[in-house]
Each structure stands twice: as structure tokens, then as C-alpha cells.
């Protein structure tokens, strides 16, 4: 890969970071978004325990993974919607890089946000629920969580690519997150809601979470990880298709605010 291409990619990441930072200054994230993540994680751990669910450890693993979804399934839609509200999509269409590629690179700061929220939540909730040993084991599995963040981001961008033009990105992004809560075995074990299990197979996070639980329990985990990768690849392909569709539709119909 040429250094010039790497530089271009870096510029796209840079603009994504600058825009992310302008709308999410660190002091605002540190006082609002990150505490929210910690409390959300705590909420689901306590809910599971109080409701007589599978147990604190199970809930902690799931709730920690769930933290990844807010920035990657929901808030990541701000990447394409920025172009809608600023009216800059036509510039991406005229550019040398594919729109999907630009979106993906600009979305990288959200992955960073997801990992920061994950680490903070694991440490804080681990301490609050007397599960620090498990917390450290989860932290050691950061690469698996990063994979889940990436697959979630792919799904988030795929949903956003179709939803932004219909002003439905907030709705569908949140719907994706709540579907993950219900169908991915986050706090309710897989199998307890059979009619949702089939949906969960195609969602990000599910297989990654199964991999995390398998690793911690000392069971085989390779298949789960590969499945998570495969599901993520499908969502990534859908994201590419989605943005390509938007570009093609804009060129056919003359609308620059997404189809």
C-alpha cells in the first residue's frame, strides 16, 4: 500500500476525529457519555441479579459487551448524517475515494469511544459489584471486544446508509441496539426467547459474546469468533452496498440529501 494512500486514509480519519471532537469534547464525554455507559452496565447487571437471571457474572459479561453498541450502532449514524445536514454529500460523491470508505474511516473515532467506554465500565462495574477478577479477565479479552465493536460499527453504518435519507437513523440505530439487547443473549440467555434467537444469529455481538463466555469458561471459542467475523463481514458488505446505492440514487434522481 502506497504511503500516499495511507495519507489519504489518515486524512479521512482525521476529519472524522475533528468532527467527532467538535460535537463531543472530551470534557463533555467524560462528564456525560462515559458515566452513562458505566451506569448502563451497572443497571443491567443489577437487573439481571434482582430478577433472578442467570447470575452476576453472566450479566456482567453481557452488559460490558452491550456498552459497545451505543457508539457503534446508534451514534455512528452521525457520520453519514453530518453530510446530510451539512450538505456535503455531493463533495464525497465527487471525490476520489469511495463514499463507503470515507464513511468507514471517519467512523473510527467512534470505535475508540466504544473501547474507552468499555474499559471504564468493566473497571467501575467490576469494582461496584465485587467482580474485579472477572473484570481483569474481560479486559484481557479486549481484542475480542474490539472485533465486536467493529462488527457493530459495520451494522450501524449499514443501517444508517439506508436510514439517514428517511430521517430514520435515530429510530433504526436504537432499534438495532434494543434488538441486540433482546436477541443476542446479553442478559437473557440464548434459548429463552426462541423466536428471537433466529434474529440474533444475524446480529453483531452475539457470537462475539459467546466467544467471550466460552473463553472465560474454558470452552472452545474459535467457531464463535469466526461466526462473529462472518456476520460483521456481511454487515460491512451491506454498508458498502448501502452507500453505493445512495451515490447511484443521488446521481440518478438529483437529490443530494440521501435517498
Amino acid at each position, binding site marked *: 500500500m502506497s504511503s500516499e494512500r495511507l495519507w489519504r486514509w489518515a486524512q479521512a480519519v482525521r476529519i472524522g476525529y475533528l468532527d467527532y471532537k467538535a460535537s*463531543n469534547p472530551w470534557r*463533555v*464525554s467524560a*462528564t*456525560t*457519555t462515559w*458515566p*452513562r455507559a458505566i*451506569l*448502563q452496565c*451497572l*443497571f443491567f447487571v*443489577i*437487573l*439481571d*441479579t*434482582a*430478577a*433472578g*437471571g442467570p447470575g452476576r457474572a453472566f450479566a456482567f459479561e453481557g452488559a460490558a459487551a452491550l456498552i459497545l453498541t451505543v457508539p457503534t450502532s446508534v451514534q455512528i449514524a452521525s457520520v453519514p448524517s453530518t453530510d446530510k445536514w451539512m450538505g456535503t454529500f455531493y463533495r464525497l460523491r465527487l471525490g476520489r475515494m469511495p463514499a463507503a470508505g470515507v464513511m468507514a474511516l471517519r467512523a473510527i473515532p467512534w470505535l475508540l469511544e466504544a473501547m474507552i467506554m468499555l474499559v471504564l465500565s468493566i473497571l467501575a462495574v467490576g469494582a*461496584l459489584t465485587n467482580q474485579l477478577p472477572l473484570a481483569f479477565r474481560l479486559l484481557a479479552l479486549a481484542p475480542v471486544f474490539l472485533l465486536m465493536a467493529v462488527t457493530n460499527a459495520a451494522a450501524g453504518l449499514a443501517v444508517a446508509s439506508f436510514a439517514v435519507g428517511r*430521517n*430514520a437513523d*435515530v*429510530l433504526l440505530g*436504537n*432499534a438495532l441496539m*434494543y*434488538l441486540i*439487547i*433482546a436477541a443476542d443473549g446479553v*442478559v*437473557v440467555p440464548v434459548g*429463552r*426467547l426462541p423466536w428471537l434467537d433466529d434474529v440474533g444469529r444475524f446480529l453483531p455481538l452475539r457470537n462475539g459474546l459467546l466467544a467471550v463466555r466460552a473463553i472465560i469458561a474454558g470452552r472452545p471459542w474459535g467457531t464463535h469468533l469466526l461466526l462473529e467475523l462472518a456476520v460483521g463481514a456481511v454487515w460491512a458488505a451491506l454498508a458498502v452496498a448501502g452507500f453505493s446505492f445512495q451515490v447511484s440514487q443521488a446521481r440518478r434522481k438529483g437529490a443530494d440529501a440521501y435517498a
Partner: protein
Amino acid sequence: MNRWSSSVSVLLACARHQILVSVRSWHFYAILAIVQPGVLLLVTLSLPRRSQVTTYYVSQAALGVLLISFWSCILWTSANILRRERMEGTLASCLTGVRDLRLVLVGKLLGTNAISALITMLTVMTVLAALRHPVRFDHVGWLVVGLLALFLSGLILGVGMASLFVLSRFGPQLSGALMYPVFLLAGLLTPLSALPSGIRWLSWGISLRWTKTFLASTIQSSPDLPALGMVVILSAGYAIVAAVAFRRFTMIALREGTIDFV
């Protein structure tokens, strides 16, 4: 038309207007009043073993989810009413109009809260019916009183939060940040005993905690009137804070011109 009936007509007109605005932005209500309560209720009822899902448990869960959804709606719709007016450029007209902005704001909150309350209740009832989980409230009359108190308290909270949020650039982040602290501190779906003892005292100042306590008491036992009293007292306190916040925002707007005037 005397002053009283004039005020009522302003309230109703603004409520109607806000309902029309809400219908256009139905996506928010779909998330807050359908998806969120639907999934939370489903999860809460699926966590325990089937034998542990008693009518009492279901009723508690339904109440908790209702309150969670109501608070979420306040945070994401009511609290951002003035902020959105500002973004649209219509806040100036509201501020400088003949009608008192307080009336206009309360009217708008009436509209948005009514929509979210109605949709949430329909969602909860639909999920319960689909899962064939019955609920039971022994004191339906007091339940209605409690829900009315909740609604009125929500209006007051909405005025205060709208007045604070209008001056902030980071409304969505603020809304998000205030969700789970209240879910946890008010014990809406999780017991207060699960929280560290050092922070449990904070729940005394949250009216939703007492609302939950009162509403839960209408399920089987006799209504917890002291809890209802706490709701009223705290709401009165919130009203004072809301009035101060509102005055502050209007003063800043008129004196320093930091609100967009066209």
C-alpha cells in the same frame, strides 16, 4: 373570554400544536414509547424462571417500565422542546409573543407528555397481552391518582429541564447522562438495596422513586400515602427550581442576546 378560559385555550392550542409536531417526529416516540419499553419489559419478564413470574412481579415490572419510559420521554422530548425551537429559529417568536411563554411551554409539554404516556401504556398492555401475563391492581382509583401525580410532576420537570437544556449545545449528551442515574436511584426496575449504601440517600430527592413506591403500593397493599405526599412535596420543590431556571433563561435571552433572535 376571561383570563382563566383564555389561559386554558392557549394551553390546549399549544398542546395540539405540539402533538402535530410530535406526529412529524414520530421516530422518537417509536423508540422511547414502543421499542424501549417493549424490549425492557420483555427482558425483565424473561429473566426469571417461569414459575417466579407472579402477577405481583409482572405488575411491578410493568410499572417500572412505564416509569422508565416516561422519564426517557421527558429527557429526550420534553427537555429538548425549547432547544428545538431555538434550532428551528422559532424561539424568538415564542419569547416575544403576546402569550406568556410559560403557558406556551406548559401547553407544549402537555401535548408531548400526553402522547408519550398514551403510547407507552398501549405498548406495555400489548406486550403483556402477547406474553399472556396478567396484571393486577387492587386500588385502581389510587393508581389513577398516582398516574395523574406522575403526569403533573412530569410537566414541572419538563419546564425545568427545557429551561436548562435550551442554553446547552450538548442536549443529547445531557439527556443520555440523566437516564440511568434516575433509573437506578429511583429503583424503577432495580432494587435500591443493590446500590452502594453511600449513595442511596440520593433517591430521597427523586420524585420518581416515591411515585414508584406509591404506584407499587396500589398493587396489593394499601396505598402508601406518605409516598404520594413526597411526590407532591418534591414536585413543589422542582416547581421552584423550574421557575428559577425559566426566569434565568429568559433573562439571558433578553439581556445578553444569546438566544437567536431573528
